[in-house]
């Protein structure tokens, strides 16, 4: 028996929206009973894209986070539905039965990920089906996966020990979106954005980018050290959100600097001017 899963690699996602558009193309104007009825012309995002802008000018990044239904093993939508309108197939796909779910609007609010949409015209809740109607016909992957230009969406059979996805499914770099929901999702992530602390170090006396300067980050009981690059830039990535850190900048012949930082947001410290130390 197959058991489907998906891993979304945020580092590879370019934000092209192909996944969203392929989903719209597949489901607008096409009924696929008993898996799904057609999506409305607009307003539904069965594969939605969340854009997260990080940092400030001129140190900016954007993370694009595609978000389909998580196909949870403990789906709250199934619990919220009446007469088995939402069910989990043996292959792991969670389906909202378009007939049985008629009128059951409360299913929408049961999902903490907010990936279920209400079809006003048809009076039904709708969401991603992982293109189960195509998989059942023998397709190897859903539309969103097929059109992803960088392979950021990895899809496959978790029961097949040789599949790429099963090899990394339980590895450390694979994470869950909102683990606090405790829903055992079948869609997992890699590279979800955390927080960064970055800055640009300048030798004040020379007005020159300070390369090879030692920068130490302490906080959360850990210590990390790196050297600035040719632009005097440093960056600590993947830090915990909302924590206190200390950045220490040291270079022989210059007065060291220590800066306290809070990672409520991503932090760009701007230009940090290193002054010549007075003692020779």
């Amino acid at each position, binding site marked *: 028996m197959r058991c489907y899963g998906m891993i979304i690699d945020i*580092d*590879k*996602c*370019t*934000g*092209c*929206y*192909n996944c*969203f*558009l*392929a989903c*719209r*193309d*597949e489901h*607008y*104007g*096409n009924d696929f009973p008993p898996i799904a009825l057609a999506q409305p*012309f*607009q*307003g539904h*995002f069965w594969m939605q*894209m969340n*854009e997260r*802008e990080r*940092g*400030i*000018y*001129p*140190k*900016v*990044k*954007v*993370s*694009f986070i595609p978000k389909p239904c998580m196909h949870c093993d403990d789906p709250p939508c199934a619990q919220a539905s009446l007469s088995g309108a939402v069910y989990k197939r043996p292959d792991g796909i969670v389906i909202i039965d378009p007939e049985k779910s008629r009128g059951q609007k409360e299913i929408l609010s049961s999902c903490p990920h907010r990936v279920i949409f209400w079809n006003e015209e048809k009076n039904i809740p709708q969401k991603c089906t992982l293109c189960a109607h195509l998989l059942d016909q023998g397709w190897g992957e859903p*539309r969103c996966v*097929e*059109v992803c*230009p*960088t*392979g950021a969406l990895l899809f496959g059979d978790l029961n097949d020990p040789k599949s790429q996805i099963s090899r990394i499914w339980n590895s450390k770099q694979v994470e869950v979106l909102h683990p606090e929901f405790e829903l055992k999702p079948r869609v997992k992530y890699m590279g979800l954005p955390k927080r960064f602390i970055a800055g640009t170090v*300048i030798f004040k006396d020379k*007005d*020159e*980018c300070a*390369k090879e300067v030692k920068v130490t980050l302490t906080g959360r009981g850990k210590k990390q050290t790196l050297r600035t*690059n*040719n*632009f*005097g*830039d440093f960056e600590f990535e993947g830090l915990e959100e909302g924590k206190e850190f200390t950045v220490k900048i040291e270079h022989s012949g210059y007065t060291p600097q220590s800066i306290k930082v809070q990672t409520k947001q991503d932090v760009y410290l701007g*230009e940090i001017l290193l002054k010549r130390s007075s003692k020779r």
Partner: protein
Amino acid sequence: MSEQIFTNCTVGGPVWVHVKDGRIVRVRPIQLDESDPPSWTIEVQGKKFSPPRKTTLSPYVLAEKNRIYSEDRVAYPRKRIDFDPDGNRHPENRGKSPYVRIGWDEALEIVSNEIKRIREKYGPAAITAMTSSHHCWGNIGYKRSAFGRFFNFLGFTDVFDNPDSWEGWHWGSIHAYGYYWRLGCPEQYDLLEDAMKHSDLLIFWSHDPDSTRAGYSAQESAIWRVWLKELGKKMIFIDPFCNYTAVHMGDKWIAPRPGTDAALAEAIAYVWLDEETYDQKFVEGRTLGFDQFKKYILGKEDGVKKTPKRAEKITGVRAPVIQALAREWASKRTMLGCGARGGFGSACRQAYGHEWARLMVYLQAMQGMGKPGVNIWSGVLGAPFNGKFFFPCYGDPIGRITGDGNPDHVAQKTAVNPVKQRLYRLLLPDAILNPPVQWLGEGFCAKSIEQQFIPYTYPMEGHPEIRMFYRYGGSFMGTMTETNKWVLAYQSPKLEFVANQSIWMDPETKMADIILPACTSFERNDISEFSNTGGYSNHASSGCNYRVIVYQKKCIEPVGESKSDLEIFTLLAEKLDFKDEYTDGGKTEEDWIKKQYDVSDLPRYISYEDFKRKGYFIVPLPEDYKPTPALRWFYEGRRRDTPDTLAPDPEKKEGVGSMTGKIEFVAQSLQKKFPKDKERPPMARYIPSWEGYDSPLAKKYPLQLIAPHPRYSYHTHYDAHCEWLADIPGHRIRKNGNNWIVVRIHPQQAAERGIKNDDIIKVFNDRGVVLGIAQITERIKPGVIHCYTSSGKYDPLEPGKAYSPDRGGCVNLLTPGRMMSKNAPGMACNTCLVDISKWEGGE
């Protein structure tokens, strides 16, 4: 009926189209099968890299179904309600009055009668006609084919296109290194492998490869960038906007003020000269005039050293960053990408954009262009490529049904336009409103460097002014400059008749007296190659992981009463008594397609029947494939060995295509023709913009608007006719029933003006008012406004009224009509001062 699958091709990739009961179910990329040739492999550092066994698509192609069945389809012939060919024509109501549905007979009768009447009264030169580019894909249906054959036989005042996307490279770089046969963009052969193996650093200057995708190469190169990152290559982006590639791949973002890129380039050269970190041997042997450049940069010509400190004041980029950039660049094997094809990039579409483009060539010349890992490479072309396999594309005369002069090729009789008078697209409105107009050059000047110097005047001596405009679709309000003039020109009584043949109700379609409905390439047959335009973009399909030649199959019946372009022109030719000539003695659509197959190398590999049955053919790489990286031959002092078929014969002309065959810091072409031109001197340099951050006008309009090529639509296509794209917040945002164009603003400017996210704002200057939706972002340099160009929607609050505020988002209503410099008639659409404010005028 069960589902059928048809092959087709679009401006953003080849597709499989699933059809059921005559309706399109889905549009998807092509999956290669085992009978297709193997994929290439590039081996670097013990790792093997091969592309996936499928093609990719540009995002908008996945909205093709939306576009084909759009409510904006013309569907039926239409006549403007107050247009009476025998009475009052009311040209002043173009763009204002509604239309009534008419039959094909009546429409064809009116159009053919008008053609006859105007030809008889004024002569054939009184008719002009033009298409836009790339609304559909295919050799037979494309502009120089079905359309070109008709108008060439008829005789008309043709319109020179300006090289709108790569102006500076055309009017500038050609004078430094030739490549006129590529309109100024350099060859890119085998540079993917070269970069993967030998480069350490990629600099993208005014370049967003993930958004512009080599024009037509879909997202084929997206995986290359993943590989390059995997191999540890660093990427630096120089752009006032932290573009889409930069935000997730960039190691460094450097944001100069618009129009000051050339000053930044000079400072980089200064550091290299000062620290002697340039390739002195290459400069000595392969270039001309370097000493003069050196003197200028070091301040020995004008007493001003072009230091990073000086550049900091001009560009707004800190001097230490400029110095570090120069050092980083010189210390590493560096690829410089300056836009979609090597050249392109917003910085070349500015006042004096040719200076920046030439300086880009100078900088890479100083680093030994052609050395392994060092080149001008856009990062989107140059995959392993079988350049020996010939397939004609619409940019090649042999790839058009007009014929190429050889009766054994495509057409027995070649259609040649007898009319010598010409118009220039950028000046077309002025030509109607304020003739005479004058300009230099023949638009796309691919024949020689000197072709840029040919003077033109309209009206040409002894020729009439134009009285009839036959337009194909069109949205120049979204793409040309100072485009309120187009509205005024359309309403001129001088234009006695305006016809528009179109698939959709485009902004210019709504200016016509008679509208003829055409169908898409999904509703007829055609033939083409993925991403290959041929001609000036010779071998553009090296931007794809596979050379895919497609038999484009009719998937559905034409929507409404629409017809193929070939059929419409055949019907008109019949009315005008040249049907036999137009059809070349009765050739059908299928006959023309077969001709394209016959003149290509396809018959050596696959029978016509098999090709048609399978729907596509993948060109195999030769088993003994040997890369010939671009300009390696030049670096090594050999004859050209790249398959650049349109380049001068290496047996006859040595070196690059400049006057001397060397890379010319001092252009001999300009030295000879315009030695005293201060706006494009023989040697390139930074010249302060005529509408820049320090111009007097900046006191009134303090913000600089940049309008780069769009990410989620193509030219003006897909945008307006694909409602789905308005669900992409980086493209348009829906509010109060309108899909507003996104205007990006730095928080500083927004705060100064009390603008909040999602506010409707007006962007304005003396040339017009455009409405959009504010997106406040750290991705833009303070003081700069970003709004993608090429709005496909033009929706003035008062329909048909020039200078009425536009809710569509055509920011080119605001851009200056002035040419980039005195003798270089390129557009400067990224040179534009504006201000913004909250829109209080109601939505």
